[in-house]
C-alpha cells in the first residue's frame, strides 16, 4: 500500500500547485477556465476520446447515466456530507421524482416535461419534509435504518398501488420538447442544425458526419441531448450548492455535523437546519429522478429503484469525498461509469466493482477528494505532532547534556 501512496504523492503535489495557481488568478480568468472545462464536458460524448469511450454500449447513454449519478451524489452530499445525516433510503426520493413525472406526463395526464419538472421537485421536497420531520429526531445510525426503511416503503407502495402502474411500471413517458423543427420521419430528422462527432482510428481523430447529433431533438435514437440537459441541471445545482454552502445555512450544517449539542447551545436551531438539508437533498434527488423518467427509455418500474441503488448513492458520495462537492461528483461519475466501462468483463463486473469499492475505502478512508477542511486539519495535526516530537528530542538532548 505504502509504495503506491508514495508513488502517487508527486501527482498530488502537482495537483495542489495547479490548484494554488488557479486560486491566484483574477475572477475573469477563473470564470473563463471553468467555462472551458464545462464546454469540454458538454463536448465529451461527441469527442469520444479513446480509452474513456465505452465500446460495448452507447457512450452518450453512459454519459447520461454518469451525469444523473453525479447529480444524485451532489444532492446526497448535502445530506451526508454537509449535515452529517446518513441517509440509506435516498432512492426513495429519486423514485418519487421519477414517479411524479411519470404520473403527470403519461399515466394520468399529458403535461409537458418542463411543466412537470418543477412539480416533481416540489412533491419530492414535500416528501422529504414529511419523512424528515418525524425521523430526524432519531440520531446517528438509527437514522440510517429508518431512512432505509422509508426507501423500501416507497418502493413497495409503488409496487402495490394500481394507480401508479403497480409492478408493470409506467410506459411511454414523453420526452422533453424538441427545440427547433420537429422530426418528421423518415426523411427529416428535425432540429436546428447537426453536430458531427469525432471518430478515432487508433490515436488519429477524424470527423464522422454519418452519426450527427441533431440540435436539439429529444428522441429515442440519441441520448446525447438528454446528457446535455442533465449536465445543464448539474451545473445549475452546482452553482446553487456553492451559494448555500458558503451562506449561514452552510455554516449551520457544518456546526450541526461536527457537534450537535454544541451547535444547539450556540443558538443554531439544529432540527430546522437538518430538516432543510434533508428537504434540499430530496429535491435534488427528485430532480434527477425526473430526468431519469423522461430519459431516452421513457419507462420506469418499481424494479428501477432497488434498495441497492441507495447503497450505491451513498458509496458514490463517500468514495468521492463526503463534504466536498467535486468529490461527490467524481464519486457519482465513477460509480456509474466503472461498471459500464468494464462491460467486457460482463459477469465479473459487479464482483470487481465490490472489490474496487473495498480497496478504495481502505486505501483512501477520507475519500478520493476530501474536503479542504479535512486536509487542513490533517496537515495541522501532522505539524503539531512533528513539533511535539522535535521538542521532546530537544529536551532529551538537554537532559543528556546536563
Amino acid at each position, binding site marked *: 500500500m505504502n509504495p503506491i501512496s508514495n508513488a502517487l504523492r508527486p501527482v498530488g503535489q502537482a495537483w495542489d500547485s495547479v490548484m494554488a495557481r488557479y486560486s491566484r488568478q483574477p475572477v475573469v480568468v477563473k470564470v473563463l477556465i471553468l467555462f472551458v472545462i464545462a464546454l469540454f464536458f458538454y463536448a465529451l460524448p461527441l469527442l469520444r476520446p479513446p480509452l474513456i469511450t465505452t465500446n460495448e454500449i452507447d457512450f452518450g447513454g453512459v454519459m447520461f447515466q454518469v451525469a444523473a449519478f453525479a447529480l444524485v451524489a451532489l444532492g446526497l452530499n448535502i445530506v451526508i456530507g454537509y449535515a452529517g445525516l446518513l441517509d440509506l433510503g435516498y432512492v426513495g426520493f429519486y423514485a418519487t421524482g421519477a414517479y411524479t413525472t411519470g404520473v403527470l406526463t403519461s399515466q394520468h395526464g399529458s403535461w409537458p416535461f418542463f411543466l412537470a419538472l418543477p412539480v416533481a421537485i416540489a412533491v419530492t421536497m414535500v416528501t422529504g419534509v414529511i419523512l424528515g420531520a418525524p425521523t430526524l429526531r432519531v440520531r446517528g445510525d438509527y437514522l440510517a435504518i429508518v431512512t432505509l426503511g422509508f426507501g*423500501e416503503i416507497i418502493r413497495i407502495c409503488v409496487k402495490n398501488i394500481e394507480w401508479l402502474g403497480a409492478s408493470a411500471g409506467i410506459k411511454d413517458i414523453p420526452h422533453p420538447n424538441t427545440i427547433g423543427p420537429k422530426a418528421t420521419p423518415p426523411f427529416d430528422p428535425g432540429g436546428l442544425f447537426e453536430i458531427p462527432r469525432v471518430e478515432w482510428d487508433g490515436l488519429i481523430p477524424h470527423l464522422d458526419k454519418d452519426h450527427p447529433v441533431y440540435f436539439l431533438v429529444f428522441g429515442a435514437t440519441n441520448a446525447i441531448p438528454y446528457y446535455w440537459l442533465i449536465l445543464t441541471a448539474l451545473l445549475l445545482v452546482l452553482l446553487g450548492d456553492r451559494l448555500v454552502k458558503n451562506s449561514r445555512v452552510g455554516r449551520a450544517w457544518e456546526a450541526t455535523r461536527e457537534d450537535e449539542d454544541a451547535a444547539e447551545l450556540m443558538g443554531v436551531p439544529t432540527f430546522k437546519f437538518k430538516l432543510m438539508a434533508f428537504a434540499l437533498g430530496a429535491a435534488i434527488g427528485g430532480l434527477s429522478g425526473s430526468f431519469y423518467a423522461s430519459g431516452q427509455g421513457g419507462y420506469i418500474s418499481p424494479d428501477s429503484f432497488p434498495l441497492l441503488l441507495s447503497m450505491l448513492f451513498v458509496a458514490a458520495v463517500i468514495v468521492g469525498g463526503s463534504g466536498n462537492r467535486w468529490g461527490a461528483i467524481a464519486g457519482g461519475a465513477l460509480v456509474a461509469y466503472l461498471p459500464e466501462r468494464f462491460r467486457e468483463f460482463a459477469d465479473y463486473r459487479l464482483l470487481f466493482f*465490490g472489490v474496487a469499492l473495498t480497496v478504495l475505502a481502505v486505501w483512501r478512508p477520507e475519500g478520493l477528494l476530501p474536503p479542504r477542511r479535512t486536509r487542513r486539519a490533517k496537515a495541522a495535526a501532522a505539524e503539531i505532532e512533528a513539533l511535539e516530537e522535535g521538542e521532546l528530542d530537544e529536551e532529551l538532548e538537554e537532559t543528556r547534556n546536563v
Partner: protein
Amino acid sequence: MDFGNLFGSPENFLSYTMGGLVFGAIYALIALGYTMVYGVLQLINFAHSEVFMYGTFAVAWVFILLHGTGSATWDLGEAVPVLLVALLAACALSAGVALLIERVAYRPLLNKNAPKLIALISAIGASFALAEAMGLRDRFAEVFRLDDNLADYVAPGKARDVFTNPVTIREHDLFTIGGYSLSDIDLVIIVSALLMMVALDQFVRRTRFGRGIRAVAQDPESAALMGVNPTRVVQVTFVIGGLMAGVAATLYMMKVGVTRQNAGFILGVKAFTAAVMGGIGNLRGALLGGLILGVMENWGSAVFGQSWKDVVAFVLLVLILLVRPSGLLGEALGKARA
C-alpha cells in the same frame, strides 16, 4: 384490510403467530451478528448478510455431499445426523467469511482510525464482492478446471438461480391447540434459537472473554491498557456473529430449503431492523426485536396482504423508534451487567 383473516379463528391466529416466531427466531440469530459488531465497534457490518448466505450454501452442499443430488424427503429424526454435520459446516464457513470480512474490510480502517462512514462503504463493497463471488462460483470452478468434479455444487450455468437443498425435511405435527398444530421443525427452530441466545448472553456476561468484549465495547483504550487485546476481541466478535449466522442458516434451510446468491440481502436488512428495534448493541434486545418483528410482519401480512409484509415491518420500526429513540431495550453491550 382483513382482520377476519387474522382474528377469525384461534387456528389462524396461532398459526400466523407461530409462523412469525419461527422467522423471528432466525432474524434474531442473524441480528446478533449486527448487534455484537455494533456493540464493540459502533459500526454497522453491512456484509453480515453474506455471512448468513454462505452458511445456507454450506448446508446445501453438505446435504449434496452426504446424500447426492436426487431429491428425497426425510423425517426430522432421519435428517438429524446430516443436519449436525451441516450445522458444523455452516458455522465454520460463516465464521470464516466473517473473519475474512474483518481482516479485509475492517482492520485496515480500524488501524488507520478512519471515519466511521467509510467502514460502511468498505463493508458494502465486501458484501457486493462476496454475493457476486457466490453467483459466479461456476466460473471459478471452470477457471480451476474443477467444473466436472464440482458440477453438483456449483450448478454450472445456473449459479445465479435458486439453489435447492435436495433433501426436503418433512414436518410432523407434535400436538394441537385450538385447531393449530405445532410442527417439530418449528419447535426445533424456536428452541434452538433461544438456546443459542441464552448461551451467548451467558458467555458475554460470565466468562473472562465476555468481560473482555464488554470492556472493549465500553472503552477500547482503557481496555487495551488493562491488558485486553482489542484486535483479538474484535476478531472474536466477528466469529461469534458468524457462528450465530451459521446456526441461523441451518435453521433457515431446514424450514425453507432453497437459497440463492442474493438470499442474504433482504434477510440481512430485516435482521438489522430487528437489532435496531430491540436496541442495537443489546443482545436481549436483538432477541426481542427479532421475535416482535417476525410476529408483527406475519400479522401484518395476514391483515393487509402478503405484498405489504415488508412495509408493516418498516413502519413498525419507525413507530418504535419514534417512541423509544434508541430501541426497545436501548442499552449498549458495554453496559450489560455481569
